[in-house]
């Protein structure tokens, strides 16, 4: 079964695309390192300010500080932003501007390998960034339990879903101006997915819409993992994000094919 499904999404050769990206970015290693500071700045600022303005919140019967409440939401947001920026900008550049995929496709690699290779790369970066985010959370005491370690795979799953979304989205972009449209989706997702306030402040019908936001699902998952509150309902975000990943990767591979192999 698995051997029948997996080739639909590319082959082992996709790792070569990962290698190619690694070679390009190795020269810019300090960019990766500097990524460590971003969560540190965000969490520090939070600790200084809003944490004092906002009283501790009740989450499933536990009282937690605002910083502890919001840190997993920020982790989810940073996973989303990182994955989207990486796939959309860089892939668009390679697809339409530098056209370096065309050279790749004259080798045994095919389109699905290219799409999958980009996902591997996005995942590797996500693993690095989310690990540093979780370390910063722990350093600043914004964690609810030792189970926070499970936020790592959770954040990687979030990145996987959004890289696949980004990969599919970038094939629809026609020029650089269309990036504004990406922002038009990404920003409301960021602002209204109940990442920095509980969903309970919304009226019921808005909450029902927000429930479908992948970022909300991810934030729910990461928050529960960070606080060590396990519940059967956690399979919902896992399945939801998993389905988004597979669906979008499939779309991305098809669209890549339409663009690169007309």
């Amino acid at each position, binding site marked *: 079964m698995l051997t029948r499904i997996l080739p639909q999404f590319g082959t082992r050769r996709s790792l070569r695309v990962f290698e*190619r990206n690694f070679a390009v970015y190795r020269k810019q290693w300090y960019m990766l390192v500097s990524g460590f500071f971003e969560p540190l700045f965000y969490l520090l600022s939070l600790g*200084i300010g809003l944490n004092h*303005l*906002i009283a501790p919140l009740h989450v499933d019967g536990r009282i937690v500080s605002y910083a502890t409440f919001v840190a997993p939401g920020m982790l989810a947001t940073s996973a989303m932003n990182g994955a989207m920026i990486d796939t959309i900008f860089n892939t668009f550049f390679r697809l339409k501007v530098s056209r370096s995929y065309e050279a790749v496709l004259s*080798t045994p*690699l095919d389109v699905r390998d290219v799409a999958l290779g980009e996902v591997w790369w996005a995942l590797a970066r996500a693993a690095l960034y989310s690990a540093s985010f979780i370390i910063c959370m722990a350093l600043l005491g914004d964690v609810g339990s030792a189970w926070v370690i499970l936020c790592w795979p959770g954040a990687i799953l979030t990145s996987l879903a959004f890289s696949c979304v980004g990969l599919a989205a970038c094939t629809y972009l026609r020029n650089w101006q269309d990036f504004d449209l990406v922002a038009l989706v990404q920003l*409301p997702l960021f602002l*209204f997915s109940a990442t920095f*306030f509980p969903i309970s*402040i919304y009226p019921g019908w808005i909450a029902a819409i927000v429930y479908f936001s992948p970022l909300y699902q991810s934030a729910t998952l990461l928050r529960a993992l960070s606080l060590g509150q396990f519940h059967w309902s956690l399979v919902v975000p896992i399945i939801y994000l998993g389905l988004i990943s597979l669906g979008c990767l499939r779309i991305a591979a098809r669209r890549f094919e339409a663009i690169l192999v007309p």
Partner: protein
Amino acid sequence: MATSTSAVVQAHQLVKRFGEFEAVKGIDLSIDEGESFGFLGPNGAGKTSTMRMISAVSHPSGGTLSIFGLDPTLQGSQIRARLGVVPQEDTLELELSVRKNLEMFARYFDLPRRVAHERTTELLAFAQLSDREDDKVDNLSGGMKRRLTIARALINRPELLILDEPTTGLDPQARHLLWERLYRLKREGVTLIITTHYMDEAEQLCDRLVVMDQGSIVAQGTPRSLIENHCTREVVELRFGVDTHEATSSVCRPWLNAWKSCPIVFCSTSIKEMRHSKQSTPVDLLLRARSCDVARSKTSSCASRGERWWSEVDAPIEPNLGWTCWRRSWWYHATFYAETWRGSVASSVLFPFFYLAALGIGVGHLVSQGAGLVQGQTYLHFIAPSLLATTTMQLGESESMWPVLASIKWFRTYHAAAATPLDPKDILYGKLSWVTTRGFAMSIIYTIAIAIFGATQSWWCLALPFLGALITLAFAAPLVAYAAKAESDVSFTTIYRFAFIPMFLFSATFYPISSYPPYLRPFVQLVPLYHGVALAREAAYGTGSFAVIATHLAVLVAMAVVGLWWGKRTMRRRLVD
């Protein structure tokens, strides 16, 4: 499908359609092993579409095609493993070194690193690039890049090498060097497929060729037989004086057409000659051996060159060289934006409302329940002006780093502008005034949003758009100056991470400065954005003493002035010196 053992490529009634358009209209081909085969024809003849199908990166829409006896639709990967492809445009990795480009590419063919390294060394010698192996590809000349692309196509020791216009755009020396390398490959038994516009190239390199036009094969054979059957040895080009070209050529044409021994092309004289020669007889008769190609022998399209290409009724326009030149650069940006505004206008209008709703109402809801309420105001009141300040800063930043570098380095539109009467400083002023205009427009929308959310208590809020424009300029000016001297965008990410994100987070934007411990507050006051945020708050509330407002204003104005002064220098250095 029957394939003879020696045929590398076999096509029967091959068709390629793009929607309604038929790029290749049913061609038959058979290319043998070790042969060097050419496609000749003008742009849009269907050469590249055919080549892409043979390279197994484009599926045929009809007919049959087999490469090495394999089906490209189903066995593309196996076919491509045995191919080398030199595309029309070099698609090299500009960020990587020459050597790394080849080694990287070898990995796509699953060559072990050691083998990749050895072959790279060999191929660099073959392409005469050994001494440049550590250079970035960006720094190579056009001919070198082309040789590197060919070397790259050879990394898997291909049985079939496909070259799409290998020498277009190269100077004669580079062209001959490339030909010489291709002869060597041919001698080694590599099958070559070459497309070209030039008969002389086809004659040099190809054993056999087909001439394509509008998707069909119009002629085929050896170069020699094609020349003998379709071309004469000579083409006569007739040039007349410019004033008399049409008259003379129409008089001559019937007379010359009777003379069938070679094609005749009517050419106008060059611009320089136009001024001097008034002769009504042919000023020169060029007998040009061997430059004919088949397509040209059938046309006399050059005759239309006799038409004047400009209209003389326009009086010459004296360009205005005064200091207001920058307005033209502003217009350039404005026109460009007018063409492409659709995507960004929705976001510019909606984002202020989104931010205020999510942060002001969403987070504000939590704050009002908490202990530390801000100076008797709601959190929405508190955050609204500072969001205006941070958003205009972000506009100034995002419009001036990557776009300026792109205009200078990648698209070179600033160089094009500098070749007109515009000075580098005019380009700078035009860019900055445009970004400031956008900052102003965005601040108006923000001010409206603030008013709708009831987050202002003073008529001073009418000053907010001007303040927003000033903040945009204060950040855009130094950043444009920096971007104009940057070599790549690598440092931009560092600036973004270590200057803009901290500025955004630690400028007392989201909480009052009193949240900081007293010893940190002076440092916050050193952050430029803090002054924008404080000023916006004072305007929205109508508070603040004259001295305080003057200090904040002075900081922002100083940033703008220093940025302008520095930008004038970096722009001039980049574009003129």
